[in-house]
């Protein structure tokens, strides 16, 4: 019930802001912040709660964003339909990558995954079909409205709905037996193993979960902003995501979302 209340709170607050400010600059900053909030909610589970220190969320955020952009511009698929396709692809990619990197733990895992944004931004900046160092534009947004006002509000409401689902899923996981296992795994892995937790499997699941949430955030980002900058997958973007997580409170899903909103609002207000 607590998870439902939490998700409901996020949805109600989000809908109010989108409906009232959706057509203003503040509203666009808010929607952008919610895109990051989708990613940081996953990070709260992965890094904050379970202490799996990985720096690959921006890579999967870029994967999601570029995936939607490519499907939209090259294959004419609407952004809303491209999102589940990209989600499935990112889940598979995370499974393959995670089965390699999650064999390491602690510092080795942190440093190995720190290389991923460096590899990603190097590749993306040089790949012509992804728009090179400039980025990739989209032709269609998440909400295919007829006027800019309806598109802005429609995109905002879809983003709020996605964030609500992510908060619900993350909170349900944390309050379940799996959440308890993840907590023990984060505090002391040998103890978790001794208690019967299948630690390699849980580590892999955690990695996939965080990556898929990040890709979903990226997909929504692309569908609402209609442009994917190459810097989205850069180490600086990863640092910004970590900052959002830490500011809001790394062990709280709601705090992680609030951190994203606060940082993005301050960033938008100062630019």
């Amino acid at each position, binding site marked *: 019930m607590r998870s439902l209340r939490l998700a409901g709170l996020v949805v109600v607050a989000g809908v109010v802001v989108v409906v009232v400010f959706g057509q203003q600059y503040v509203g666009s900053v808010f929607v952008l912040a919610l895109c990051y909030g989708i990613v940081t909610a996953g990070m709260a589970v992965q890094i904050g709660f379970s202490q799996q220190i990985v720096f690959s969320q921006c890579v999967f955020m870029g994967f999601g964003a570029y995936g939607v952009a490519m499907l939209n511009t090259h294959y004419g698929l609407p952004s809303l339909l491209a999102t589940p396709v990209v989600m499935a692809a990112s889940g598979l990619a995370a499974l393959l990558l995670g089965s390699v990197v999650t064999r390491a733990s*602690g*510092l080795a895992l942190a440093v190995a995954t720190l290389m991923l944004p*460096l590899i990603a931004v190097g590749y993306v900046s040089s790949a012509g079909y992804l728009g090179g160092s400039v980025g990739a534009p989209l032709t269609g947004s998440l909400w295919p409205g007829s006027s800019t006002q309806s598109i802005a509000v429609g995109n905002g409401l879809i983003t709020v709905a996605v964030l609500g689902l992510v908060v619900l899923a993350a909170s349900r996981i944390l309050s379940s037996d799996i959440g308890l296992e993840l907590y023990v795994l984060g505090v002391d892995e040998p103890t978790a193993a001794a208690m019967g937790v299948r630690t390699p499997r849980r580590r892999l699941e955690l990695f996939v979960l965080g990556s898929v949430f990040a890709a979903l955030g990226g997909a929504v980002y692309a569908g609402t902003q209609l442009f994917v900058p190459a810097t989205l997958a850069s*180490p600086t973007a990863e640092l910004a995501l970590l900052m959002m997580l830490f500011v809001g409170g790394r062990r709280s899903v709601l705090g992680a979302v609030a951190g994203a909103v606060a940082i993005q609002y301050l960033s938008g207000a100062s630019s």
Partner: protein
Amino acid sequence: MKFGNLVIAGLVTGSIYAVFAVCVSVWYRVSNILNLAVGDFAMLGALGVDDLVRVRNWPLPAAIAVTLVTVAAFGYVYDRVVLRLATEGRSAQEGIVVTFFFTFALSFFIDGVARVLFGTDVHAAPALWSGRSLTVLSSLHVERAGILVLACAVICGSMFWLYISRTLGGKAIQACGENPLGARIAGIDTRRYRRIIFTGTAVLAAVFGIVESPITGYTYLSGATISLTGFIAAAYGGFRQPGRALLAGLAIGITEALLGGYVSAEYGDTVLYAILAALVLAWPRALGFGSAVSG
């Protein structure tokens, strides 16, 4: 001779990585905090001197002196106020919050201030040794700024090594890292050493920013990239071994140059990071990744 020129270029770049890696690992050894703002101090040094000389027409020595004093004062105050409160205050933080967050926040703060003060264009401090590149052994070319960087790296590395291995202060620093509580019981002022090293490495980074910036040029965002490379090289030294961090920095610099020259100028860095990631995953313990950053 292509190989020789690439190795020289790699040595210059590697010595920069090495110095930043040493800065990260020496301070981690004292404080158990990763300094993710070390590159931002380098950026402040380079852009600060450039601003004073180019925009305000100050003489170069005065600009360097004022910039270094400002960086030192800033580092001192940050340690005295923020880091002290964060690690020793009533609501002291621990684990990864302290390990990453406070210097990371500092990095963001410095970036924001630098954007306001210096703008977003690429700038560099004036070259301390200007002129055409030198030719060695008839076909090896070395930039004068590169020679300065190498010389600074050798001098600073030797001084650090001598200080750590031959002086009582160096022994105290080692004790702080091995067992902070034991060090305090033995009468070592761990706070003082933390402050000295933080301020000292900030000034050292600023010096390197001033010396190196004529080669690459800096923007207000350059600090994060430098810090990241220093962090990676320091990680290969397990964060606590400055000597290994120095070697890792040099190796990364040379490998980067060779990959850029022989494999692909475009994807050289990408291949380098893939190799580094593969090495970590293949031999974590042998490379010093036995320790963990825990929460």
